[in-house]
């Protein structure tokens, strides 16, 4: 179990006593200001976290985790041995040294090979449906662990560098908080004194509640909830978690001075602060053209940051409570097209997972010799999500009541990939 220190300096309690002294309005405690008082407990962490390394665009896992050297589909790279069971691309030597902590699932087989649909499906465990918007990984985790997150003042679901998928029917209170990889949270500084802002918030609170009472649908109340989270964020010492300048130079260099490196480092800081779900985005995998040339620069970026993240988490004792999951919306065609690229391919591809109770060093499943077909039990997004949820202590038997009133199982009723656990 991980304990965290109470933030020093201006904490919530401190902030509230300030308010009491100087605010012009002696209005009773209102919803928006009450939010400030609720969480001033000692930070204590008894939940697991997950870092999703999202490879937007669909990475060619056949060139990375499930190489087919010798086959016509194989590509120019050589595989190297790792500290785990499988071989991986030679451009990932540092990750190879961490593979005893990570496992490869080589038998992912899905049906969504369109970016938008694939992104949705892999994030939610559901295929897109015009009548209901499903919550993505981070929103599910934030929602299910909400009772254990009392001391968390920053948003429970942070997406670094891109948008992730939305909260669906769970509502905007569980939406991803999007920040860029340099960690600057735009406009987080209030422009007026605390006392003055408190006066403003009191009037705003009246406005918000009046409009909610008028019963015009959920958007009004969602806005009020997000306002609360925003105030909580603005006044929190935990904001420092976003600032990777708080790390020494050598640590930053270890993760790599790249967008992905900074994002991974920020993710580690957020996990340390108690954030239960952090998505780190690395885009640019839509390699229809010059796939191999581009991998020459992309893979080393992944290698440095991903290996540093896994090792750092392990060294700090965080890895046993933190799932690390590497995936994109689909893989890419075994066939190499006329532009030395690979196109969208969902039928047989790989993801990587480790930490948080997921076994390391394993290779789960296999594909045939040219990578066009899964030869073992195929796994879906639902299965993967069920596995991650189970290891994070989220009950798979729980039903959400979707906004359309239909009961809906977490992870779409997927079955746990037992080879990844125990």
């Amino acid at each position, binding site marked *: 179990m991980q304990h965290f220190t109470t933030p020093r300096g201006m904490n919530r309690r401190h902030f509230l006593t300030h308010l009491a002294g100087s605010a012009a*309005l002696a209005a009773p405690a209102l919803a928006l200001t009450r939010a400030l008082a609720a969480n001033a407990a000692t930070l204590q962490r008894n939940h697991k976290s997950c870092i999703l390394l999202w490879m937007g665009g669909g990475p060619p896992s056949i060139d990375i985790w499930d190489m087919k050297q010798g086959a016509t589909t194989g590509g120019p790279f050589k595989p190297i041995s790792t500290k785990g069971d499988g071989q991986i691309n030679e451009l990932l030597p540092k990750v190879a040294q961490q593979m005893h902590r990570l496992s490869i699932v080589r038998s992912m087989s899905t049906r969504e090979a369109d970016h938008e649909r694939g992104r949705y499906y892999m994030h939610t465990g559901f295929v897109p449906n015009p009548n209901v918007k499903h919550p993505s990984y981070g929103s599910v985790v934030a929602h299910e662990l909400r009772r254990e997150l009392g001391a968390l003042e920053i948003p429970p679901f942070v997406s670094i560098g891109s948008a992730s998928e939305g909260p669906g029917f769970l509502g905007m209170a569980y939406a991803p908080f*999007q920040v860029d990889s340099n960690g600057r949270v*735009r406009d987080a500084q209030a422009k007026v004194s605390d006392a003055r802002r408190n006066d403003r918030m009191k009037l705003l609170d009246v*406005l918000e509640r009046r409009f909610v009472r008028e019963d015009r649908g959920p958007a009004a109340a969602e806005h009020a909830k997000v306002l609360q989270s925003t105030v909580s964020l603005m006044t929190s010492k935990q904001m420092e978690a976003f600032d990777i300048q708080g790390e020494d130079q050598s640590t930053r260099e270890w993760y790599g001075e790249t967008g992905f490196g900074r994002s991974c480092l920020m993710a580690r800081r957020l996990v340390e602060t108690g954030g239960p779900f952090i998505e780190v985005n690395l885009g640019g995998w839509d390699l229809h053209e010059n796939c191999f040339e581009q991998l020459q620069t992309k893979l080393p970026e992944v290698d440095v940051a991903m290996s540093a993240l896994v090792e750092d988490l392990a060294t700090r004792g965080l890895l046993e409570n933190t799932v690390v999951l590497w995936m994109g919306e689909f893989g890419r065609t075994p066939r190499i097209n006329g532009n030395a690229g690979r196109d969208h391919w969902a039928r047989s591809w790989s993801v990587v997972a480790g930490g948080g109770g997921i076994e390391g060093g394993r290779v789960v499943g296999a594909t045939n010799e040219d990578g066009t077909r899964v030869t073992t039990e195929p796994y879906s997004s639902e299965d993967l999500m069920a596995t991650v949820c189970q290891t994070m202590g989220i009950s798979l038997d729980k039903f959400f009541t979707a906004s359309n009133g239909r009961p809906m199982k977490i992870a779409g009723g997927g079955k746990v990939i037992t080879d990844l656990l125990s």
Partner: protein
Amino acid sequence: MSPDGLQRPRPFRFKLGIKTMARSAYWQSASSICCLLTFLLPWPASAAESSPAYQTPSSLIESDQVVARIDELIDQGWQENELRPSRAASDPQWCRRVFLDVIGRVPTVEELDRFASNRAPTKRRDLVEQLLGGEYAEEYARNWTTFWTNTLIGRTGGRQRRSLTNRGALEGFLHDWLLENKPHDQLASELITASGSADPEEEDFNGAVNFLVEKLTEDGVQATAKTAEIFLGTAVQCTQCHNHPFNEYRQDRFWQLNAFFRQARMRRKRDPEDENRRLASVADEDFAGEGRRVLGDDRGEIFLELPDGKLVDAEATEQTDAPIFFELRNGQVRVAYPVYVDGQSLADEFSDRGSPYGNSGAVQHVNRRAELAKLIVADRQFDRAMVNRLWAHFLGHGFTKPPHDMGPHNPPSHPELLDELGQAFRAAGFDQESLVKWIVLSKPYSLSSRIGRANREDDPTLGATPQFSRFYVRQMQAEQLYESLLVATEADATVSAEERAALKDRWLRQFNTAFGTDDGAESTTFNGSIPQVLTMMNGDLVQRACSTGSGSFLDRIANDPQLSNREKIIHLYRAVLARLPSKEETNICNELLAARDGDVVGSLQDIWWAVLNSNEFVLIH
């Protein structure tokens, strides 16, 4: 060498098989309000041709009748679903939403007063006509330029570094188009067939090419998908690789549609002014087919070089067929020629015209994009797609979810209404302003957004099929918010138009992220999440709006000797919420004024900040 067949009129086929009526019959049947079908049919046979004269489009159709028909069919849905609609929205509420949806900002206090002072029973209609008229022409054009630019190239299109798309040039093209209110079918044709340079500095500049410019890479796959999505309301993206999982769209249809774009070439050249910039242009060129080349000789005759190296005379042989190839999932390779989505092939079409060159890729034989544009605007799906898109803009939900994925797999909530509105739009010469007017004057648009006892079930966010028995609350777009703040506070009155545009652009950019995938997908953080709220609370736009400097909006209100403190507060409320403060709100505002001990402008600043940060302001209701 004559472009055989291209100019010959094509017999117009009405796909629903309804017989066309003589123009005179239209006027006789126009009195019937029970069915639009009876007065929609007789557009001239030339409607599908290249340059019809649309002189008096909106007068062709009586707005009242279309509006009555909308009300009737929507009411039918209420009856069938045992819903009782919400009460009508109050005049100021309705006025606020019309301003936001038609010209993209909230009404000023003066505009609210003007509307209130009109006692005529036609006051709502009068307002809509005003907003569509000369006084607001510029604002209307600005708002719909935003709408169409975002539809055509997204919010990030042309905003990335080194993008070949010139966003401003496309905006300029659309702005002119909207200012003149030219018909939507011509707009579609222009965009689909555009040739010329994307950059305004170039001699052959044509702003319209900026829709397609970056979509022609990868053999025009994105051009195909976006054209179908935007102009036909059908999502064919995934049929590029395989048959659609849920509907009848097949992979061959995708590539047959794609074949229409294969004469279109994008060329890049270095910007003479800027080393690092590339300028793009689009032109139609002879396309010999995949694996073949077009050769000209010095007498100007055209030969084709086949894959085996053989030369054949382009005029004299069926070898002019220019095929493309695509691969099925099982690895089989298939051939495709231009065939429209309804199965109509150019080969048959041309042979009806007496030409053997329907499959040719030579521009002298056939201009594939021009043929496609004609087929699209003649297709009933073209008008339905536009109706669905605009309905969704005004009512918050389209007749299908999402509006651009229509088809048998996704039946519309109101098929009859969708179809009849589509026909009315077509009969009105594809006049966007008419369509806007009909929707805005309809009963569903006039309802309150408050949920009643007998229509709580009607909630599309809960998965229900929308019945439009109340006005569904939705959030303002970032652009609407920006313009509303500017108008309410006259913040940028002293700034030049150019500087204004740059400021706005910079502010809008902060919210958008592109996913960097080939489909141009993107997302916005102006979606009700924390970054948006932070922007409103602490960002510089609201800071500017809350300025109390000399001559600022708040300064003027605070120091207006004509206004009592109470009236000052009322003014702030009306300026963005179009209502008076409640008793509770008035009390707390008065407390604030009292506590600030005479600092009126400071108190107003706090009130103004709170109002601008409220859910009520950012929502359209």
